[in-house]
Each structure stands twice: as C-alpha cells, then as structure tokens.
C-alpha cells in the first residue's frame, strides 16, 4: 500500500486539467517510477495524486504534415526506442532513452515524466536540448509551446503552470533534417544507474562532408539543469572537419559548464568527462553524417 491521500484518475486531457483545478494540492502521476518511489521514501507521503497514466491519446510518435516529429508525453522509453519514425530521423534519442534504468523501467517510464521532474541527469533531456525540442503544455487556457531550454527553470523546477500538463514533445523538421547525432552516458554501471555525466552531440555537414555547417552539444549533470555549450558550438560552426577542430571544440565546452562535486563524482572528474565525451560524441556524429576526420 502506498501512503496516498486520494487518487483521481483522468479519462481525458480535459478531465485531467479539471481534476487538477479541483484539487490544487494534487500531484501528477504518469508512469510512477519517480512519484511512487518518492512516495515510498516518504517525500511525497500523504499526497493526493491525479493519474494521467490511462490517457492513451498521449502515447505514440507521429510525423505531422509539416515534418515535425510529435512524441506524446506518455510514450514509454522502450516504445520510443522501437519507433520507426524515431529510428529514421532521430535515432540518437532512441539510443539515449535505451540507457535509462533497466528494461522494466523503460517500459513504465515516460518521456514526459523524465522531463517534468526537472532533473539534470535525465537521459532524454540532454538529447532534447541538443535537438532544440519544443515542449507542448496544455492547461485551462489552452495549449502553449515553449522551447525545452525555457521549460527548465532550475533544479527540479519546470515551467508547468497550475493545472497544466505536458502533452507532447515536438522536434521541428529544421532541427533534425540533415543532422546526425550521438549520445554518451558515463555511469558506474551499464544498467540501473544514473549518469555521472551525459553528453549529446549532433552535427550537420556540408554537401561535400568537409565542413561543419552546424554543431550542437548538450549535457546532463554538467550544471543544475540540462544545458547547451554555446561557446563550443560557435567555435565549431563553419570549420573544416579535422582532429584539431574537434580537440578545440571539446576544450571550449568548459567555458559554459558549471559542473560541481557531488557524492557521485568530483567537479574535476566531471570536467574531464565533459571534454572527453564531447570529443568522442562529435567524432562519432561526424562519422554518422558521412564525414571523414583528417
């Protein structure tokens, strides 16, 4: 038995919003792999819950008419990994979420929950930052769409207004067309572990595959929330692909990161990882994009 005050199950998005308005103290539960664990730990003990787990309308990946990839917020990690649209256009996201927890966790955990809990280590978040994802939120005043960068406010806090729920994550066509990316999770174990640091890179090369037209890099656990490294991106853009450029690019990430010491790892180790992971993830992204490193 869970120490819960009451449970309200929503049958539709509209009903979920109504329930959240009627019960302003209630917390949202999607897959529950964070909420129920925290309830067991006592952190959320005695809470009222609004369950949105039954909202099948928020499951699945679709390609919209303008080429936007729409990922319903309740889509599980394992379904994202197996999805043909994800595999075709943004395979790195499927690979990244395939590193969350273990198999059973990937069947219950949702991409919406992974982003709404606001933690920096979320395996989906750095890749979503690196692909300029848009977060769709639905509330009493209708639907609003904001960039994932603006969605994260501070550690554990996201821009979810009262009675609002996250309904989708969108990747616009201009964000993914022509890009190839790679994610590296550094953790102590291969399964059931949280990233010490995670790094997601993607790149668009020129037609002759010689020049980096655009490079994007984002980190988890290099600051209080997932973050991009704009100085490195600026440094890499427009450069001819070479070992030196990749080396300089990876060193430049430190200009933006705010790694800190925690019981998992020291600041120095995280900074070392940040540079090394940037180098490896960019090298792999260039290979995936068909480039050769001179």
């Amino acid at each position: 038995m869970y120490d819960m005050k009451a449970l309200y199950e929503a049958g539709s998005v509209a009903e979920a919003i109504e329930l959240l308005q009627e019960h302003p103290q209630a917390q949202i539960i999607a897959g529950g792999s964070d909420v129920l664990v925290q309830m067991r730990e006592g952190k959320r003990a005695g809470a009222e819950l609004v369950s949105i787990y039954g909202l099948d309308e928020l499951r699945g990946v679709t390609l919209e008419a303008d080429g936007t990839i729409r990922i319903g917020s309740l889509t599980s990690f394992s379904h994202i990994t197996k999805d043909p649209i994800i595999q075709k256009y943004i395979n790195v996201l499927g690979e990244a979420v395939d590193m969350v927890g273990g198999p059973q966790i990937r069947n219950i955990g949702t991409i919406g929950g992974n982003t709404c809990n606001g933690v920096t280590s979320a395996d989906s978040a750095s890749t979503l930052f690196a692909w300029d994802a848009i977060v769709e939120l639905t509330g009493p005043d209708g639907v609003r769409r904001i960039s994932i960068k603006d969605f994260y406010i501070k550690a554990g806090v996201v821009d979810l207004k009262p009675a609002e729920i996250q309904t989708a994550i969108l990747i616009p066509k201009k964000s993914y067309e022509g890009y190839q990316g790679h994610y590296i999770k550094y953790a102590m174990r291969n399964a059931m572990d949280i990233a010490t640091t995670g790094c997601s890179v993607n790149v668009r090369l020129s037609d002759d595959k010689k020049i980096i037209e655009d490079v994007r890099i984002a980190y988890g656990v290099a600051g209080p929330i997932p973050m991009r490294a704009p100085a490195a991106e600026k440094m890499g853009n427009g450069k001819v692909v070479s070992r030196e450029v990749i080396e300089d690019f990876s060193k430049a990430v430190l200009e933006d990161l705010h790694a800190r010491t925690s019981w998992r790892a020291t600041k120095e180790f995280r900074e070392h990882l940040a540079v090394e992971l940037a180098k490896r993830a960019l090298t792999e992204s260039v290979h995936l994009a068909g480039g050769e490193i001179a």
Partner: protein
Amino acid sequence: MSVQYKLVTCTINGVERSGMVDVRASLTDMLRNDYRLTSVKKGCEVGECGACNVIIDGECFNSCIYLAVWAEGKNIRTLESLLGPNGELSDIQQAFVDETAIQCGFCSPGFIMTAVEILEAGKLYTDDELRKLLSGHLCRCTGYENILRAVKKTMYKRLGVEWTEE
C-alpha cells in the same frame, strides 16, 4: 479520509477476474493478497530488484511500482501461468533447474518472466544483448552466469538452432 476503492476487471493468467481494489494498492499487493499469486515477490518495492516482475500486455513491468487500478482491462501474466495442467514445469523453468540458475529462488519468478518476454520475441540474441535484457533483476546469490546460460539454452532450443558450449 475514508478508504477509497475501485472495481478492477482484468485478465490474470488467462482468466477474467474482477474485484474491488484499494486505490493505494500496488499491483504486487493485488496479485499477492487478492489472487494469492505468491510468485510475485516483494523485494525492494522501489522498482530496482525485479522480484515482482510480471508481464502486462506482452511487456515486463515491476508490479511494485504499478498501481493496481492501472490493471483495468489489461492482460497480466505471472509465473503461475507457465505450469502445465498437472504442475509440469515449462522449458524455461526446467532450464533454470538444469543449469542451477536457482539458489534461494527469490529472484527466479521475476527473472523467468523476463526470460519469457525474451523467448517470445523469437529472436536469436547475442550474449551482450541477453545481459542487457536481463539487467533489470538482482540476484543476491550471484547466479547470473547460470541464469544467462539457462535463458540462452532455452532460446537456442526454441529456435531449433544448435548451441555448442564454448
């Protein structure tokens, strides 16, 4: 606050079942207490050890972090469904016995249900893939190699592929 109940109807091991469930219950609570399916173990109860693993609509879930009310309309399978009409062991259970993949047995039902999902995929996985697929379970008697071998042997057998041990 008065106790809140909900009628939950679902298919458990091939039989449609219906019952009033306390909304605070986990699926582990419901399967063990209401349906006496004690193969579903209470281990960590926070989704880390896999002892409570069951198959819901073809996919494995840790039933300890799955609300019982979410079972409405679902098809749930536990280890008990694997036995033959006279209590005969299934091939995967027999393989666990043959390969000494069991010591205390507490993790076995969870492991075996994950093995069932693996075997039903009908694919020939590599050792690395099998390790990853089995990684959501803890065995504190450290029987992982034997468990891997039991699953691998059954996988080869079901696919009719010959396996020679290195």
